[in-house]
């Protein structure tokens, strides 16, 4: 039976390889959560969609768990796909192993730096987007207290928190920022019940605007905020539509731009390896104003946010980065 099964598998693989060996179209490997996660991966998928709408073809793979990453990347590379785009910091290790074995293939990774001659790494200045979020939260708050619910207790989330605090203080100096991390395992990104409870705790302490930087946990944060009649704030994708009129804005991370950018560059033959750092200046981070939150954003808030974007872009406002600049001073 075992021999029969492995024979069948081998045959299927052979057929599969034979039919796909000549493909040279680009490929993308989404992180755990899948391309419809309403957040990070979906943003990457938006980039793929934009590329497809212009006639491009992209192969896709959705990771079920981190350990599949190595195999997925290697499969795409060995079938001649180029560039192969890895989404998420958790794929960095796998890409670091695969990239040297396929020196002719172009690779890209989002949210992490992989130092190889054929890899383009995209990283985002989350703190700059968070600054805008903090600024708007500080202006929208009537109580003078705002909240932050983070996911897993990792530097990237602290970077976001610090930017948020800095922005809030820029809006009003006496602002009080309550902050909670959900946990210290990856499960902290998928615990909406605890997220909601943390948000309710902050609301009871007076917070009237709460930002989530917690992936799936954040769904619970936004829900609790909407239930209790205070404002939530989304991240990564546009989450304004989750609770129209109850989400102040969403701080977007333009993974879609990074993905589209590398697909288009490869198509034009201008793909270059190296590190790309995206912030508000180049549209890598932005905030969303649409029909769901247009009544929440006053003209003054809009002006202040746009002024902050301009100030960060030209360098007159420097947002603290806890990863490179040390502990958060706010």
């Amino acid at each position, binding site marked *: 039976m075992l021999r029969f099964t492995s024979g069948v598998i081998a045959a299927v693989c052979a057929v599969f390889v034979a039919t796909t060996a000549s493909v040279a179209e680009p490929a993308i490997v989404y992180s755990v*959560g*899948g*391309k*419809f*996660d*309403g957040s990070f*991966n979906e943003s990457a998928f938006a980039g793929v969609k934009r590329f497809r709408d212009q006639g491009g073809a992209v192969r896709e793979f959705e990771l079920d768990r981190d350990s599949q990453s190595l195999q997925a990347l290697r499969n795409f590379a060995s079938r001649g796909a180029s560039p192969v785009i890895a989404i998420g910091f958790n794929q960095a290790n796998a890409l670091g192993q695969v990239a040297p074995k396929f020196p002719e293939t172009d690779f890209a990774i989002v949210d992490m730096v992989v130092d190889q001659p054929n890899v383009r790494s995209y990283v985002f200045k989350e703190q700059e987007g968070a600054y805008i979020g903090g600024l708007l939260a500080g202006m929208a708050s009537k109580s003078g207290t705002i909240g932050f619910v983070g996911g897993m207790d990792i530097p990237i989330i602290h970077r976001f928190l610090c930017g948020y605090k800095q922005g809030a203080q820029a809006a009003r100096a006496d602002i009080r920022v309550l*902050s*909670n*991390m959900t*946990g*210290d395992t990856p*499960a902290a990104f*998928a*615990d*909406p*019940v*605890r997220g*909601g*409870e*943390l948000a*309710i*705790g902050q609301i*009871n302490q007076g917070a009237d605007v709460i930002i989530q930087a917690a992936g*799936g946990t954040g*769904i*619970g944060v936004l*829900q609790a905020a909407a239930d209790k009649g205070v404002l939530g704030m989304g991240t990564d994708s546009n989450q304004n539509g*989750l609770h129209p009129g109850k989400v102040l804005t969403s701080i977007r991370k333009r993974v879609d731009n990074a993905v589209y950018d590398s697909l288009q560059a490869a198509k034009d033959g201008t793909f270059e390896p190296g590190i790309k750092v995206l912030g508000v200046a180049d549209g890598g981070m932005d905030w969303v104003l649409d029909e769901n939150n247009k009544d929440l954003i006053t003209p003054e808030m809009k002006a202040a946010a746009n002024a902050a974007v301009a100030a960060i872009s030209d360098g007159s406002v420097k947002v603290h980065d806890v990863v490179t600049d040390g502990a958060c001073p706010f």
Partner: protein
Amino acid sequence: MFEIVILTLDSTVRLSTPLLLACLAGLYSERSGVVDIGLEGKMLGAAFGAGAVAYLTGNAWIGLLAGMAVSIGLALIHGFASITNRGNQIVSGVAINFLAAGLTALLGQTWFRQGGRTPSLPEGGRFRDIILPYAEELRDVPVIGGIYSELLSGHNILVYAAFVAVPLTWWVLFRTRFGLRLRAVGENPAAVDTAGISVTWLRYRAVIACGALCGVAGAYLSIAQSSGFIKDMTAGKGFIALAALIFAKWKPANAMFACLLFGFLDAVAIRMQGQKIPGIGEIPVQFFQALPYILTVILLAGFIGKAIPPKAAGIPYLKERS
């Protein structure tokens, strides 16, 4: 200060409810001699069933029934493996946990295409908070107002159901014929069998009761406390409930206090995070997260005495044939 205490206790009640329901579920099963470490999986399956059906029908009650049905289905699988086929109950329980974790994510992704989530529930698809009569009027009365309006009022119906289930479980187990037999079958199934009562049928009824309560616990997570199912949303609550069950020495009232204690620790952990305590400084949040487990060990080792499980727990019953 008083307000902080009330708000923490309020949070305790919300956080204890799923633990309490799951703990009582485990109580029925283990009292009948079927060890159940599949509480987590059953809760997760129920949370998914409830979330999916409540989204599709827009009716929280139908969602609750669906959640219970899923959970009872999983409980029957456990029963079939461990009662009818006399398999290892631990292995079967672990299998249920894996099955639920995998299936909910897979089905959720296939049906709703949102990364294993169910979409946000429509109005009416959730159990909303119930404001008890006169809660608003009494809010400003000192002490009583805080206790009545904040602590007792403003929970959803499943919270009240969970706390009503405690005396009910006590009554069923210790004041009815069914309860007597259920306890007997967990201690000495041979004696029950000799008296002409079916061990198999009794144990099946126990796991069905377990499934039903786990179903309510799961539904509470997805359609009462939050709005929709999210992958792995039980986050280990089934295992905490199991610890609470041991802690409570398999008694309903103790179970309630154990779950309230664990809920309280969780609530305190949320409040204390990042706060400085005079004289001590900031306490790492990991300390509070580990506390339920540490407390179980310490209290079991020294304070509450030996927790003796039902004698026949974990042992499949094999009728001797001549």
